């Protein structure tokens, strides 16, 4: 069984976001991490390796620096790493990103493709389902559990007020929620091997059956009209009352003024 996990290197928004003087995001000043949903997807794949001897390949698209997350994944137990990098692929929206990744996947063998549900930088949740669409595969999003049953996969799929147990034939694409599992740590031996491991690097020419018009900034149907720091509502009043009674009188007075009570 062959599993390909698509992972993304993202800035860690938890540690606070840094901006350049012009208001754009200062990615260089922020710690780069493996996207949490993707890491859960990788862990799910590694459990299939533990249980069924699945071969796990990690695939990412990005700058050459993104090999860091491939090596991290390999130190956790992934067998192979593939980086897609090329200047012409830069500035891609979710459509152009998914056509690129689908173009790479057409060169690969897989029974299962796992992606994270969404990445913490864009939060779109679009690339996984779009890859499945380009490849003509069934897709199951928001996976909370993944099990294998012969040539089928059984997935617990989360919805707002329920879950469905779904069964799909393989090959299929699954998008993983970070709640799926607790990802394992890298092992010292794994880190040693991963440092020395060879990473396959592909460029534009290695993508199969993809039109230039569907790649990079030029092939992106969505265009940014404006980007800015969020303008927040200004602060109102702040008081430090002497006693709880005074605090209560203040709040009740304001609610009355606003006709709320």
């Amino acid at each position, binding site marked *: 069984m062959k599993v390909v996990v698509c992972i993304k290197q993202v800035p860690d*928004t938890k540690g606070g*976001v840094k901006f350049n003087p012009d208001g754009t*995001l200062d990615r260089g000043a922020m710690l780069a991490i493996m996207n949490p949903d993707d890491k859960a997807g990788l862990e799910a794949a590694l459990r299939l390796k533990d249980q069924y001897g699945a071969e796990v390949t990690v695939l990412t698209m990005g700058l050459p620096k993104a090999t860091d997350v491939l090596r991290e994944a390999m130190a956790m137990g992934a067998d192979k790493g593939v980086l897609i990098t090329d200047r012409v692929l830069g500035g891609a*929206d*979710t*459509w152009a990103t*998914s056509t690129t990744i689908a173009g790479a996947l057409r060169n690969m063998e897989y029974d299962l493709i796992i992606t994270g549900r969404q990445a*913490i*930088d864009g*939060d779109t*949740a*679009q690339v*996984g*389902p*779009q890859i*499945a*669409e380009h490849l*003509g*595969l069934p*897709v*199951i999003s*928001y996976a909370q559990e993944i099990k294998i049953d012969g040539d089928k996969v059984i997935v617990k799929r989360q*919805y707002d*007020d*329920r*879950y*469905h*147990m*779904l069964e*799909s034939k393989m090959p*299929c694409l699954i998008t993983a929620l970070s709640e799926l599992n607790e990802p394992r740590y890298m092992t010292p031996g794994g880190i040693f091997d991963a440092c020395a491991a060879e990473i396959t690097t592909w460029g534009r020419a290695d993508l199969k059956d993809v039109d230039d*018009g569907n790649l990079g900034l030029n*092939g992106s*149907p*969505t*265009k*940014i*009209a*404006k*980007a*800015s720091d*969020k303008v*927040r509502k*200004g*602060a*109102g*009043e*702040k*008081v*430090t*009352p002497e006693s709880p009674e005074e*605090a*209560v009188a203040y*709040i*009740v007075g*304001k*609610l009355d003024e*606003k006709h*709320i*009570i």
Partner: protein
Amino acid sequence: MKMTPEQIAQYKGVFVFAQQVDNKVSTIAYELLGKAKELAESLETKEVTAVLIGSDVKSLADSLAEYGADKVIVVDDPELKEYRTEPYAHALSSVINEFKPEIVLVGATAIGRDLGPTVSARVETGLTADCTVLNIGDFPLVPVPGKEDEQLHGQLLMTRPAFGGNTIATIACPDNRPQMATVRPGVMQKITPVKGAKAEVIEFNPGFTPNDRYVTIKEVVKAVSDVKDIMDAKILVSGGRGVGSPENFKILEDLAEALGGQVSCSRAVVDAGWKPKDMQVGQTGKTVRPNLYVAVGISGAIQHVAGMEEADVIVAINKDEDAPIFDVADYGVVGDLNKIVPKLTEEIKAAKAAKLA
């Protein structure tokens, strides 16, 4: 994949995916209709169309009309009983290819965030996720000097937060149709329903032939919840880690009851296992816009603020005078919530009783 201006000109009207679950229209569908009506006013064709997909759902068309749909396209088939990506994507993309709308809005729900990307890829257009503001305008916003005649008008401008709500971007889809967006629940306003309003109902069935992309549903497990959705509440009393314990939420429940509201919470409270996820306000929870939001013992992380800053009136009670919640609160009180909240409950009861007398 760019379309020609002639192709683009064929696409007219604003379509809304009218999500239904268990043959009940989801609130998001009415919110999207409210927004669609407003957008359609700024466009050449003023028409709003709801796309209703399911099994035995035709009777829901009237309620969509009452909330602003001029037309309802019904795709009714036994294969569509429960949501599954493939038959629903086939239904919606077939409607798009047949009727050619210029705008398609889908709710950013656990259904819409799966359906939207699949359909947008199938009909080969762009999709902007989790939008919080939509309007019609020009692209580029300001014409490029010397290329004034290349500026496009009547474009859908889609605004969304990114990077955990730290930045905000406005996105257009100038060269492809339809212009597609998923919209965050709880953000758009539904209209006051027009009782007895009728829409033109169009039945459309593109044919459903199961293949390997049709997954099988083995089991449906509904979460049991008798709690009203916090997104429908006019008044929310919301607790954070500062409340101290799950038991201490009792004082918030009492206050909420006195005010005629409900209790919600921050992510810290859900992570600690004190309250279920459907009570969580914020970036990874729900977006709420009640008339009154009382933040009790909530520090006000940016992700939390993203989910509640649209409330009409925000009151914050926190013992830390530097808590960021005070930056968005209309009325901030620095003090001990354990002393203030129970007294506030009593005073509100008294004030309400006095008004009734």
